[in-house]
């Protein structure tokens, strides 16, 4: 019998810096500043919850919005298993889309934000306020698939991105229900109490977006909104070939910024908060920093948009226990040949009924 219990966790501390010491001048591998910042980061893993709350073809831009962020976080290293993507309607395979399986951020078709390997966790009618709140608070129904759960912990940095149609104090879901800013604040408070995040970056692109973070009281939350209360968020441009607006202004410039970010980039969240000045966004980007204890200008952007693990540098000897080698080597002698048997198939049609 195989010993199944012999599964062991192999913990390998990165020795990257050790190799850096050999070539002390080569800072391109891991910049010193980054290492410092990363060491000050307190998270151990990254999660992203990306929500497009609006349905119907004319809201194409909201799907493009959410997919822009999805594309960036995926490119910067958050695996699909840690991205919860909610899209309320299907744009890529919509009958009105002349380019099936593709969603662009730009009329010139610069970036196919839908990509070739997207995984949408909640789609269509599944995108409801109830499911969203259940997801955040971890109170999903019994039997919910693992990929539909936010399995974050006290060491998780969580990025929440919302887009849709909103108003003062609410965001519409599917044109039939709303989540209020109070519900959002309560959900996040519950996340904090349940130790479901370490730091939370809340990003919202909708009209009067700043009203959504007003009620937050939970610690370690940094929030950015595309417009202040009383302001509309505007779309960027229209694509005449599909007849609808492509993307919203704020997310368009956010994606433009994120496209330049590489996994070991020195860009900070502070820079990201300034991506869309009023001159280009037309609306005023709102930021709420009072709940956040770190200086955004010292926080690498990959703390929220990437999955860079903090690295502990050790120059001492480290004992690494490897799993039992036998488990990985296939032993042909141990193999029990299974005896073949005759398979008799059942009749596929109840012909006896027609006699």
């Amino acid at each position, binding site marked *: 019998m195989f010993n199944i219990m012999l599964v062991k966790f192999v913990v390998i501390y990165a020795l990257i810096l050790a190799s850096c010491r050999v070539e002390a001048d080569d800072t391109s591998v891991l910049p010193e500043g980054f290492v410092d910042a990363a060491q000050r980061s307190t998270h151990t893993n990254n999660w992203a919850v990306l929500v497009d709350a609006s349905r119907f073809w004319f809201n194409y831009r909201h799907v493009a919005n959410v997919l822009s962020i999805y594309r960036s976080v995926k490119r910067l290293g958050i695996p699909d298993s840690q991205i919860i993507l909610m899209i309320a309607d299907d744009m890529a395979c919509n009958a009105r889309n002349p380019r099936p399986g593709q969603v662009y951020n730009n009329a010139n078709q610069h970036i196919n934000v839908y990509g070739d390997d997207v995984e949408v966790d909640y789609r269509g009618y599944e995108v409801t306020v109830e499911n969203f709140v259940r997801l955040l608070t971890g109170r999903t129904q019994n039997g919910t698939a693992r990929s539909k759960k936010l399995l974050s912990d006290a060491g998780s940095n969580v990025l929440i991105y919302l887009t849709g149609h909103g108003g003062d104090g609410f965001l519409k879901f599917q044109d039939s229900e709303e989540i209020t800013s109070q519900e959002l604040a309560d959900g996040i408070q519950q996340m904090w109490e349940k130790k479901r995040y370490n730091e939370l970056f809340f990003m919202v692109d909708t009209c009067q977006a700043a009203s959504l973070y007003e009620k937050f009281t939970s610690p370690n939350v940094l929030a950015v909104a595309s417009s202040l209360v009383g302001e509309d968020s505007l779309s960027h441009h229209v694509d005449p070939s599909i007849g609808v607006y492509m993307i919203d202004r704020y997310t368009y410039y956010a994606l433009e910024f994120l496209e330049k970010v590489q996994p070991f980039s020195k860009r900070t969240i502070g820079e990201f908060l300034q991506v869309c000045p009023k001159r280009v966004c037309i609306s005023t980007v709102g930021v709420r920093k009072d709940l956040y204890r770190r200086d955004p200008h010292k926080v690498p952007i990959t703390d929220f948009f990437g999955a860079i693990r903090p690295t502990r540098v050790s120059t001492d000897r480290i004992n690494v226990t490897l799993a039992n080698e036998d488990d990985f080597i296939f032993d042909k002698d141990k193999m029990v040949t299974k005896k073949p048997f005759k398979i008799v*198939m059942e009749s596929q049609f109840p012909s006896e009924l027609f006699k």
Partner: protein
Amino acid sequence: MYPVAFVLLLLVAFNAGANLGRDDERFHEELVVRPLSGDHVNTYFQFTTRWHYGEKDNLYHTQLTPRVIAELLQQFAVKELHIGLTQGLWRYETWGYPIVEATSGAEMWAWFSGANLTNRDVDSQWKALANVFSGVLCASLNFVDNTNSIAPRHLIRPQFMPANGQRFVRYATLPREIVCTENLTPWKKLLPCGSASGFASLLNSGHVHNTKYHSLGLKVRVLCEDHDEDNCIVELTQTANLVYDLRLFELSNNDFSLRRLFGMGLNGYCELAESSKIYVQRNELGERYQLVPEPVHEVKTTRGGHSVVYSVYDMHEQFKEAGERLFNVAWLAPKSANRRRNLAKPSLPPVTVHRYLLGHGQERGRIVTVVTNSHYDALPIMLQEVIPWYVHAYLHTLSIRRKPQRVNEYGRQRLPFKLLHYTPGKQRELPSHLEIGFMLPGQTSALISIDVDYLLLKWLEYPPDANHGHYIGSAIVSSQLPMGRNYSALPPEGHLFEHSFNATRPSYVLSLHTEALIVSLPTPDFSMPYNVICLACTVVALAFGPIHSVATKMIIVGRQTSAPKNFVKKIFNQIFRRGKAADEAAAEGEGSPAAGAAASDATGVASARPAISPGSPSGDQPLLEDLDEEEEEQD
């Protein structure tokens, strides 16, 4: 560089031959290309993993079989599972029968069998199973529950089941489900090589969703030696069935190639695959094409009196030499005058089906299914219908009328039922489930109709896009054909496409799907409550003022001593009364404060004011000012 690549390839070839040292688990990949009529091309991918795992404990060590499938067998008492995710409609009349059947949207059914399994256990396992695959395939299969699932009685049969023990089946469709890249991505991840190499590398989302019809299938079945579960085989078959319309490629001629269809050539075979073959149909509509490169092998298969010729490209041979980079097959159409369209039609399939709705309005209708038998002999036909709970069916209206193919009208003549199974639905709990069987005479159509009522749903039961309509899933029609014309499905005992070669049997079981229907249930105007609230509030506000004023104001009738007796003077007095009244009020003050303000817009009360004013004992100036201001606002 060259020797290194050569050595690597040798190693790869060696590995493939050794099959990773495990003989009981094999993976095969197959691609079938069949030109269809009307410039369509059917490409069918089949990836098969067959694992003779023996006893259940071995399921903990998976190699080629995805872990989720192995865990499924440990967790659930499931013996057979079929899932289909499809976009588009298969046209039986012009395309013939597909290799695998599927209905538009999502379809799922499973067979359960195990010791001490009860119906309630199966219900919960079924729901859990749907939830698992909703995560695995990124589909909304979690909407599958008891309100849209049935337990088919006769039509859906298990392929293999242990003789002992009870068996249970559940079936559900979600016709609204959309199939897109997010389903293809996880589906490809279940393959041993992923999408990195082998035939799966051809399935790129942009080129898959460009098709007229695309269907992803997943089939798991467990075959065990009789009476015990210690010697079992699990088979996972993943299929992708695509129909391309060549006209969409905007070609000047009818030539096409793998690169044209899939956007790229084939980069090799999956190193874990035992076999990796492309089958190209050469007869019928494939006859006119010339293949480049020339195929080495050719297979002629005769099944039930129907012959098909396939050219075979074996990828293991093709990529034997190191020089080969990308493999491409081109179909060259003849450069003759007849170069425009491939209008040749295949022989009409023996059984075809269609379905539509009759009736008008949003209250009642009739579901009609037409089954046509163009074979010369009578055929047994079975039909399974799932009618959702928001549509009420009346069993007494169910009838099968017949018409010979030459005649235009359906006569009064009814066909007798050989089988009738009906489980009535229950509002919000169970769908109606109908299975009927009858003999359909040769060269005849049957029209099966049943009357239905549409239910008015509760407000919150409507989906966000209520005016889109609600779906009734497709019906399944099954028959048993005596001949193999147009029939290309795999025999139940086979697991590879090549097992359908020369698989002559006494009869061939055919299963077809009709179109799904969309009904517009009576949909309320969702903004009505808002409108009603606005209107009601306005009416109340307008009514409140005068009523309140009348109810609270004290009306004292006083004689106006200075009133003129003369008629002309009376009229004169009437005209100038308003100004006078204000003067008088200013002089003497107003008695009733707030009520007068609310009442000021109502003329009847205003006219009563002069009568009040003189009688009022006293009043003060500020109150009067208030009154005047409010009068201004209201105006």
